[in-house]
């Protein structure tokens, strides 16, 4: 299944990528598994597992490591928010 990925702020800059389409291999169906899959690309992608307090959102709602992924999902990774 394919998903849409978004990266924001310091993470976006570290990766040098803001968005990508990704075809998920079988078995990668949670936020935690997706982070491991991306980190396996090597530096700078290891940030997906090493960044302190990295946040994830699935379909624009905050998500935890166990949140299940479905085809067509919009998944975003970003640092803790600092607006206001």
């Amino acid at each position, binding site marked *: 299944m394919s998903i849409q990925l978004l990266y*924001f702020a310091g993470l976006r800059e570290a990766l040098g990528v803001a968005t990508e389409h990704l075809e998920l291999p079988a078995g990668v169906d949670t936020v935690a598994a997706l982070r491991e899959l991306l980190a396996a690309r090597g530096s700078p992608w290891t940030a997906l597992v090493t960044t302190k307090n990295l946040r994830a959102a699935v379909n*624009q709602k905050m998500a935890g490591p166990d949140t299940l992924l479905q085809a067509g999902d919009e998944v*975003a990774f970003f640092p803790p928010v*600092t607006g206001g």
Partner: protein
Amino acid sequence: MSVTIQAADFDCGQEIVAITKGRDDIGAIASFIGLVRADPLAGEKINAMTLEHYPGMTEKALAEIVAQAKSRWDLQAVRVIHRIGRLVTGEQIVLVVVAASHRGSAFAACEFIMDFLKTKAPFWKKEETTHHGQWVEARDADESAADRWTK
């Protein structure tokens, strides 16, 4: 529309007029404005900051925060404006205006919205000095401020 994300500046007075015009049932308006402060960074003064956001999710998160405030307190109107893009020191970043019958509700809801906006709405600030740029780190104090409302 009670929530707006925009690059343009805002006028607190105009927003208050828009809320109160033609009404005679509002007794209290509490408001908050956040501004870009010239704090020190890496031995220099901050000149400006750039606000990044997550289009779509930001609007939803703010609408959810406003809905929560309305469910906790008896409010007559809420207005939230958050700017994005590059802002120099002294510029306004965010406005929250809350109208209620009584001041206790207006103050509490305004502070509640700011506390949750600071921890739940997907905005990120990158501060810049003449020679440096640095993403702002989330403050533990902001998490604590938001946590006190769940007690």
